[in-house]
């Protein structure tokens, strides 16, 4: 187990370096820079930025330097000083903008993940054990529906229903009075009151696919000889189910966990934009649109690092769950 973990962790390093380079180039290579975008945005409101001012701004932000120099300045700041650079459009250090948002993103993603587990695992087990029953058909139907409806559409519909039927305050994760309030118990409660809507929206498609994965795998396991043997030895049906087949059936589910997490984080962008959530998604899109280089690159870097670490985590978890993995590839 030790050598497996070590090997797996070493693989992460080149991946991170590549990810950091790509994160920066993705935003640096397309034509135009932040100043061009600023000029364009001002033009849309009727204003004109004189050319001399554009050039002065470009020089002040170092946007006139070669790309690799800019990359080195940025990544060395990230690695050596934990300084993610400067967000031009916010006039703030990137870390001041990102951290609060990243916190809420993680809360929302983890909440959605928990929602998926709580909903999908019991339903998946039930559907497998009672397959072709009325309950199985009902859940399967709902599952496919959840998988088929795009998240953003569901978000729009949910917002409309929340607005038209319940008269709810839509948009955002907090009530107006809590948006910029310091953390308190009341603010946590307020967050929970608003969290469920995006949580359900983000969780639906994940729930559907997890139900199918567990159902299919469990159905394979249920008829294997070891199950019959255990049952013949007089083991209780529920304990038997939980101890052996379900544990096996969870294997692909665990390895797929990271994909679901990535789906939530990236798929969450559109939902967050539609619902006006203060998560990272809308900020990232904005940073990309305004060519706010350091912010966009830092975001992509952080999300990519999350994915890399998530993959590592799910690999390690899988290795713990299934000993065969540890001993493969000597």
């Amino acid at each position, binding site marked *: 187990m030790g050598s497996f973990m070590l090997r797996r962790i070493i693989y992460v390093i080149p991946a991170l370096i590549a990810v950091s380079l790509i994160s920066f180039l993705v935003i640096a290579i*397309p*034509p*135009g820079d932040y100043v*061009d*975008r600023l*000029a*364009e945005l*001002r*033009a*849309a*409101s*009727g*204003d*004109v*930025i*004189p*050319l*001399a*001012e*554009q*050039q*002065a*701004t470009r*020089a*002040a*932000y*170092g946007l006139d330097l070669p790309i690799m120099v800019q990359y080195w300045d940025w990544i060395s700041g990230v690695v050596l000083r934990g*300084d993610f650079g*400067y967000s031009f*459009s*916010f*006039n*703030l*250090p990137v870390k*001041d*903008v990102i951290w*609060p948002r990243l916190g809420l993103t993680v809360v929302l993603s983890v909440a959605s993940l928990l929602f998926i587990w709580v909903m999908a695992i019991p339903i998946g087990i039930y559907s497998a054990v009672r397959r072709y029953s009325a309950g199985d058909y009902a859940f399967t139907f709902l599952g496919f529906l959840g998988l088929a409806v795009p998240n953003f559409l569901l978000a*729009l519909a949910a*917002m409309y229903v929340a*607005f038209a039927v319940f008269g709810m*305050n*839509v*948009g*955002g994760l*907090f009530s*107006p009075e809590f*948006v*910029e309030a310091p953390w308190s118990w009341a603010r946590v409660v307020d967050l929970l009151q608003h969290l469920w809507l995006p949580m359900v929206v983000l969780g639906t498609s994940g729930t559907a696919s997890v139900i199918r994965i567990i159902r299919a795998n469990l159905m394979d396991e249920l008829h294997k000889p070891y199950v019959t043997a255990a049952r013949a030895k007089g083991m209780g049906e529920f304990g038997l189910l939980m101890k052996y087949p379900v544990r096996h059936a969870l294997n692909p589910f665990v390895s797929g966990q990271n994909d679901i997490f990535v789906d939530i984080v990236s798929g969450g962008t559109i939902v967050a*934009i*539609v*619902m*006006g959530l*203060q998560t990272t998604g*809308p900020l990232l899109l*904005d940073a990309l*649109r305004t*060519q706010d280089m350091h912010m966009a690159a830092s975001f992509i870097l952080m999300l990519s690092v999350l994915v890399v670490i998530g993959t590592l985590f799910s690999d390690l978890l899988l290795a713990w769950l299934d000993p065969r993995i540890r001993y493969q590839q000597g």
Partner: protein
Amino acid sequence: MQNQFLGVTRLLAVTSALLSAAALPGAIVLPSQAQDAAACASYTEAPQLKAQVDAGTLPPAAERLPLEPLVIQPAEGKGVYGGQFIDSWGGGNLADIRQFGYEPLVRWSVDGSQVVPGIAKSWEISDDAKTYTFHLREGMKWSDGHPFTADDILFWWDRVENNVKVITGGPRNEYKVDGEIPVVTKVNDYAVSFSWSKPNGLFLQQMAGPYGQRAVQFPKHYLEQFDIDLNPEGVAELMAAAGATDYAAWWKGNVGSYNDPSQFNDPKRPSIHAWVGTDSILGKERVTFVRNPYYFAVDPSCQQLPYIDERVWASAAEPEVTLLQAIQGQITMSPRNVSIPQNRAVFFDNQAAGDYRLVPAASCDYNTAVLAFSVNHPDPIKAQVFSSKDFRAGISQAINRQEIIDTVYLGQGEPFQPAPLPNSPFYNETMARQFTEFDLAAAAEHLDKILPMGPDGVRLGPDGKPFAFSVEINADFKPDTVDAFQLIERTWKQAGLNVTINHHSDELFGAARSKPDSDGSVWVGENGCGQLPLLNLSRFMNDYGGWSLGNWNGWAAWDRKRLDPNAELPEGWEVIEPPANVQRLYELRSLIPQTIGEEQTALMQEFTNLQAEEFLTIGIAMPAGFYRSVKNNLHNVPAELIEGWLYPGPAPSNFASYYFQ
């Protein structure tokens, strides 16, 4: 339907108020509007300030107000104190004065017809219009209680506008005459003069626009500490603490010039606005501004303004969310980006539920879309075609404008070319209306002269080869242009034109538009009402300040060399001599700002006549049907608002005089 019709006529009636001429230079101006000194023995103030005065933490109102405060005539009447005005914002630029507040040196009157006192209580213009002297209000104070004097304006001029160490790009063209910057002099503590060697015919109107705001937002006593020449050690310390290495970038992020969000980010920074910040705004989702106890204006019954206690800015990046919040009644006045004709029905239906009313807001835009072709295209055939008036006339007549207005703009507006609006004294019937009839036969007649019809129904270029061209559109900026050009593409094809419409996202449009070989592109026409065309001659010459629609660099290069034979041309520009009429147009563009009174009017007449004759750009429709949702309990909102940039509506309608009941 009838309701809407009434709305439109009312709207037209009010925009015509923009007609009359602004205070013309050449005489001492004693502003006649009722914003003159009030004879107040004492002043009333907001209850929340009264408590502080009683506790001794704030001087009494009479000591906080200038000797002659600005008297704002409310739209309806005397108001009451209190309440919270809630706005939605995109989270970036609060400095957009169109919604936040409008406190320039001199200001547009509410109806946009004339320039009236603002921070300056009066002004004098020398007979030759070479010197403008502005008189400030004695006893006026910044929001921290420090006196506001001529020194603050000189600080702006010396340490900001002309300081190469900070990012401003130098004094803007709005302050210049024929490229010459003014000499700014302190006459005494309460008077500042601007003078040039040539007459300046437009300075007052320029200072009433957004750029007049810059002069009065740099409190010397506070900002000196951020100036690297005045406080080198202090700035070095501050920069080190922030981890900043570049002074200009640091200054932009901490002080900022007139449109940088950072100028609202420091709650300690004194301001002259009616409301001042309580916290930094950048990166925040919701920010609050509270009343400025030193705000320099009162109502006619000697109550200190503003009436409303607080202004709250709630971030909502997505327009659909903003729209929902507006129709739910969570926003006091709907922002411009959602208050468009296409959303009118939604707003109308939810009036009762959201407890708001719709107030018409006339647009100062002179066209929904302006199409310009590359007259200096590097391909000589294309340059020949695009420079041909016959081509442009044919193109224009092959547009079915009424169909576009009916389907895209829901019947609002009328066919129009890029031209001053009918409510402007510079309106020119021919310039505005020629070639707006949809007439494929007439179009064919024009087009046949330059692009003969080929055998397969597609027109051929002057070289006998099939002629194709493309038009670049920004699909994000105004989605209605996308719909309009889908209809246009259809009728152009009927006229035998082989055209490709390229849709670009906001990010990529800039690159597409400024490519030297782009054929033509589309933008909106701004600042066409009242006096504004005077300040907007460059737009009519398709010079948008650093960029133009399609390639006009050759002509622009000719103009630069005309003004200064030693001028250096930007890379890739080559002088191309324009036709005689266009040469005269360029000359007029530099002459008009240097003239005053009747001479100026006559030159403007010549300008619009020549524009009509040359027909350089093509428009679609006069914009109409704009409005704002306003909460029913909000009063003193004018019956009609005006939207624009150089007239930065709706801010000139005096938010400080709005009140809740």
